[in-house]
């Protein structure tokens, strides 16, 4: 065997076969020099065997920009002896590039050492350009997938990721090229990771749908390891092979909003409770202080009377009475401290967008409150703007009013709750209108009294707290009767917090 030819093949049956097949067959020695160049190669390149043999492939067949890659692949094969696939250009004698898909292997000598590199190639120039055309037609689709606000991931039956949209990159933190070829378990946290394969197999075997076609909320995991809630909607389609496509929405932001609403609600309830307790404490303190005053005064009266008469234990009696008075004062002081402790917090005003404050309050008021068929409409004036107010307190008022309206409409046939805001010259008005049972004359008179209620479970403090809050804002709260059944509650807040502005409309 010489360095330039593969004599064993010469004239052999095998040689004839290799010469006649359409497949490109080229054999290189360990230096990269061509020792065999079949007819297919000659036809494709325009170089005959004599022109090719003995030359290194990268000296005349490879495009300049691919020389390094081809040499690298050759050396890797030479050293590691693992078969490889490779796609590269060959340039023909007249300079035209052809795309060849190679399958490379090694041929060993008697000692098992690598003696030759065998490359078998297929000219895929035509089919490649067809793919390119296909790719073109798909690029429209790709653009859509890329623009989707929902992450889109496709996989094959084995769960291998086939595509990974831009939004998926953004949500999960993996780049497309990191995700492609990986199993879907990449984005599924333990312990679902194990189960996922089981689900998939189960589905493939039985066709029984567990998650297919339905939206489900699950936990996913990011590249950083952070777990987060997503809604996933999986479907399948056939594109020659079976492909699963998952549409995934990141819920963490939505969750944050929900949690914030929940927080605000708790905060309001807490303040509401404290507000209510403050109201109760103040009333009790006042009611208790009166009899204490009477008792202390009576004791004082007796002590003064005793000073005017003489009897043996007089001084003792007087000092006991003085002690009685100071004990009464102590009791009164305790009550005062309790009252101060539960006193409503002072209003903390700052500038707020009124519509925003109202919208948030509506959302909170309707959470949990079984709106049971209540139709809610809002009409928030475009130019309402800001007002100086205590956000939590004003929301408390709006919530109280909405709750009252919902209560009043419980048995009504038509349940319509309309909330509006409007800017008038000197004040901003918030209106809450319902189609409930309305107000009787007696109720109208006592509406804002603390502890006045017509409800079995009512405390009767919603409106009295609301009134004190609105008073603290130099505003006005009134109930307006409607022609049709129901009530409108109106809150007027001064613009820019000017004193009494609301009252001088």
């Amino acid at each position: 065997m010489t360095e330039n030819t593969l004599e064993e093949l010469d004239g052999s049956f095998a040689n004839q076969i290799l010469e006649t097949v359409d497949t490109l067959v080229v054999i290189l020695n360990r230096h990269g020099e061509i020792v065999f160049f079949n007819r297919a190669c000659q036809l494709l390149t325009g170089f005959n065997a004599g022109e090719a043999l003995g030359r290194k492939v990268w000296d005349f067949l490879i495009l300049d920009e691919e020389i390094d890659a081809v040499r690298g692949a050759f050396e890797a094969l030479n050293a590691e002896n693992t078969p490889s696939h490779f796609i590269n250009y060959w340039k023909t004698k007249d300079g035209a590039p052809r795309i060849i898909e190679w399958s490379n292997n090694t041929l060993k000598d008697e000692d098992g050492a690598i003696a030759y590199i065998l490359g078998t190639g297929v000219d895929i120039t035509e089919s490649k350009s067809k793919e390119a055309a296909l790719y073109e037609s798909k690029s429209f689709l790709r653009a859509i997938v890329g623009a989707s606000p929902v992450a889109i991931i496709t996989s094959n039956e084995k769960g291998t990721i086939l595509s990974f949209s831009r939004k998926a990159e953004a949500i999960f933190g993996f780049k497309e090229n990191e995700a492609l070829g990986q199993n879907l378990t990449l984005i599924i946290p333990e312990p679902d990771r194990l189960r996922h394969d089981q689900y998939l197999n189960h589905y493939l075997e039985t066709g029984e749908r567990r998650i297919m076609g339905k939206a489900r909320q699950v936990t996913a995991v990011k590249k950083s390891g952070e777990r987060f809630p997503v809604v996933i909607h999986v479907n399948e389609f056939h594109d020659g092979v079976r492909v699963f496509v998952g549409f995934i929405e990141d819920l963490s932001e939505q969750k944050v909003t929900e949690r914030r609403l929940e927080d605000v609600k708790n905060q309001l309830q807490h303040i509401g409770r404290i507000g209510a307790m403050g109201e109760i404490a103040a009333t009790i303190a006042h009611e208790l202080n009166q009899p204490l005053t009477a008792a202390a005064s009576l004791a004082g009266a007796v002590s003064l009377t005793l000073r005017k008469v003489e009897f043996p234990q007089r001084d003792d009696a007087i000092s006991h009475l003085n002690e009685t008075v100071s004990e009464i004062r102590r009791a009164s002081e305790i009550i005062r401290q309790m009252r101060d402790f539960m006193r409503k917090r002072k209003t903390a005003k700052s500038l707020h967008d009124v519509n925003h404050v109202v919208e948030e309050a509506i959302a909170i008021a309707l959470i949990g409150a079984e709106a049971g068929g209540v139709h809610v409409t809002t009409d928030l004036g475009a130019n309402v703007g800001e007002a100086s107010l205590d956000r939590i307190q004003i929301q408390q008022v709006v919530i109280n009013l909405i709750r009252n309206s919902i209560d009043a409409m419980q048995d009504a046939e038509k349940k319509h709750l309309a909330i509006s805001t409007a800017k008038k010259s000197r004040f901003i008005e918030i209106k809450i209108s319902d189609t409930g049972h309305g107000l009787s004359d007696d109720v109208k008179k006592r509406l804002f009294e603390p502890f006045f209620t017509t409800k079995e479970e009512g405390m009767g403090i919603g409106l009295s707290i609301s009134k004190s809050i609105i008073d603290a804002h130099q505003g006005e709260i009134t109930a307006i009767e409607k022609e049709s059944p129901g009530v409108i509650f109106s809150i007027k807040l001064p613009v820019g917090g000017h004193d009494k502005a609301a009252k001088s409309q």
Partner: protein
Amino acid sequence: MTKLQKVNKGEVFLIDDDAAVRRGVAALLTAADYTVSIFTSGEEFLSEMGSLDIDDAALLVDVCMPGIQGLELQEKLNRDGVDLPVIVMTAHGDIPMAVRAMRNGAVDFLEKPFTVDEVTTSLERAHAISRPVIKGAQKASPELCKNYDSLTPRESEVLRNVVDGSTNKEIARSLDVSPRTIEVHRQNMMSKMNAKSFAELVRMAVALDIGD
């Protein structure tokens, strides 16, 4: 109107809506040798005022009552030029009302429940005070001004808040310091002002025209 006793210490018109309070306070004042006339409301007092001898008398009135309130009554008397020293009785937390009453020319205010000494001291002031005792009559003395000027900015801020009816806790929150600190400022302020009671402090504040 019920007249109880006539002795030399002078006459007191007592107005309170609570029957037990009326009875108790009347008993106390009678034992302290005042003549007491009792009224259950501001309206009742006004309707009978024409037939009353208001010379050498004082009015002891609760600030918080249904119907015409203590303050309104006082303001009406001022408007009508009725020359009658007024002492208001307040319950907890009516400090802002007490301050307003003082500003309107009240001689004093008493926090319920009060002792014999407190009420008799107030009444003595009321009866002794040179008339007329109308709005803004009490002027700050040079000594009071000097005391006030000796306060640190924090102390005068605490003074203003205290006479507006804020609790230590509330003042602490609004000034963003601990309630304990406010307590210290408050004590220093009281001693610099030479005020022996809260009522006295309010009286001074009114004379100095502090607070609102």
